[in-house]
């Protein structure tokens, strides 16, 4: 459904924009129909940047994104609108996605004005009704309310319902539950998993490994804008190969096991300019000479690729 082929995002930084910061560097992966792919990485790893590039909120510096056979990087006007009919995003902070002085269902009205001007009002209300029920909300209690009258979990589900009004096939869910409380976040997560059964593909961006493991089949681990490891979730979680992934797995706070002593903390902030060697070089316990060249993801077994010279 969606193929990401060697995309990069370069920002000009420094005085007069003389230096380049590679936020994302040659990342490739694909997402199939009805698949949930988790994009996992720490802050600054470029995971949100990838999400924004897919949604065309920012331009793509290099590489291309292909959606159902069409390269989206140069879409304009009507074609762009068609694309947004199929691809939508939901973001981290549900409270700032709404204008607090208007009622929350205004987000639905925009969709109608923009995409369905020909639909009659009763039909439209019926459509809203169905999509709200699909996200587990009761329309009678939810409509005609201001954002502050609804909880974070409800607002977040509202936004998913908004996306469902369109004929979405692909949803970018960027940290959508990190602002929610433990008691409500699991409901939103279950909702995403249910939508999958309706044929929706989801890119689930998160920094929480246990959440990724809970709902997705495939995971992509990012570190400083590069793919460290990707493949089937069970393989990555049970047999991580990349030293970074291994370190992540032992650092996750678990409820069934206590930590071993010792943490691997970052020693320096990232350097500017094109990425030449392995990005994990300065923290890696296994680093050797070869690591000054940049490794690209190589398949080590079926559905499991790793970008590490030691692994290949």
């Amino acid at each position, binding site marked *: 459904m969606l193929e990401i082929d060697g995309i990069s995002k370069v920002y000009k930084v420094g005085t007069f924009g003389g230096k380049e910061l590679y936020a994302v560097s040659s990342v490739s992966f694909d997402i199939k129909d009805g698949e949930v792919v988790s994009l996992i990485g*720490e*802050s600054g790893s470029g995971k949100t940047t990838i999400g924004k590039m897919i949604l065309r909120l920012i331009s793509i510096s290099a590489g291309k994104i292909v959606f159902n056979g069409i390269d989206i990087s140069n879409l304009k006007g009507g074609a762009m609108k068609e694309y947004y009919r199929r691809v939508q995003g939901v973001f981290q902070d549900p409270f700032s996605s709404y204008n607090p002085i208007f009622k929350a269902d205004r987000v639905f009205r925009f969709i109608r004005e923009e995409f369905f001007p020909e639909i009659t009002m009763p039909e439209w209300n019926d459509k809203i009704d169905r999509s709200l029920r699909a996200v587990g909300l009761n329309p009678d209690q939810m409509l005609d309310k201001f954002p502050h009258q609804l*909880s974070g*979990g409800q607002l977040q589900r509202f936004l998913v319902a908004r996306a469902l009004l369109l004929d979405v096939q692909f949803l970018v869910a960027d940290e959508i539950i990190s602002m929610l*409380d*433990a*008691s*409500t*976040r*699991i*409901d939103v*997560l*279950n909702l995403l*998993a249910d939508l999958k059964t309706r044929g929706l593909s989801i890119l689930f961006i998160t*920094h929480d*490994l*246990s*959440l990724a*493991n*809970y*709902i997705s089949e495939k995971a992509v681990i990012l570190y400083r804008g590069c793919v460290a490891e990707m493949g089937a*979730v069970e393989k990555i*979680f049970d047999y991580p190969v990349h030293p970074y992934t291994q*370190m*992540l*797995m032992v*650092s*996750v*706070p*678990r*409820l*069934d096991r*206590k*930590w071993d*002593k*010792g*943490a*691997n*903390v*970052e020693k320096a*902030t990232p350097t500017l300019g094109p990425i030449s060697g392995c990005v994990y070089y300065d923290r890696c316990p296994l680093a050797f000479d070869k690591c000054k060249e940049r490794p690209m993801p190589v398949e080590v077994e079926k559905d499991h690729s790793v970008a590490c010279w030691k692994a290949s």
Partner: protein
Amino acid sequence: MTLQVENLTVYYQTLRGDVRALENATFNLADGEIMGLAGESGCGKTTLGHSLIILRPPMRFVGGQVTLDNEKLPVWDMEGMNSFRFKKISIIPQYAMNAMNPTRKIGKMTEELLRSRKVEIKAYMPELKRRLGLVKLPHETLNMYPIELSGGMKQRMVMVLSTLLNPTLLIADEITSALDVASQKAVVEMLVEFRNQGCCNSTIVITHDISILYQIADSILIMYAGQLAEKASTEVIMRAPRHPYTKLLISSLPTVGVKYSERHLKGIPGSPPLLLNPTIGCRFRERCPIAYEKCTEEPPFVEIEKGHFVACWKEFKTNARD
């Protein structure tokens, strides 16, 4: 007992009345105990933490008593608390990463901070360097500006700053929420190390992430809607919770290894009550699966086993029958 809190009640004053953010909090903290304080956002955990050190308006002290090392704390008195703050009680605030002055080098800022408490940095330097070593920061950090450090490094620097004068009580407010897993682990392990090395005596760790508490806390206090729900040792809270809210909360947490396709986790239906004129009685009652008539009265926070406190009528009843 390092810290004794009795019936501490703090409201927020608003134009529409009092928001009852913390009501009748009663608990003790032993020497060297690391207590986790957990609950949903808006349950009063940060209010409880802050009321022990700085009661800023619109927070209003309503009643209660706080005793630290057998000394009564004048928590209602902004000025009177000055002799305790930083020396005896210290806090690592939420978003501590942005707490440092961006126009000062870190060493300069530390010097000014110490001088304000009449400590000369020269004499303190060896100890400061030792502590930087504890949090794995190079000594050159002192010659850097905050902008030169990453989030995790800033967080660790603020930990050093907060504990410079060996406070008896350290309050760590959501110190891990903005960090990635490796930094999270580093920061909380250092918190334990600080306790072991005597840089602080007892610690209250405020967080919504129970899996972090499971790793480091000796005991966990669960709050719900401004009331204490349950306090017990970490193992007991995780394995044998008694309060229905704690039970539901623990069972809703996804752990590594649980998959949607194999097991559906459940959330808690409903949402917490508004704390502006809340209903009398147990505040969890409307979401509680086992609520009954008695729950319209407020349950006391009672020790049902040694070190295990619960505020639930059903629990008292089953206990009385045994």
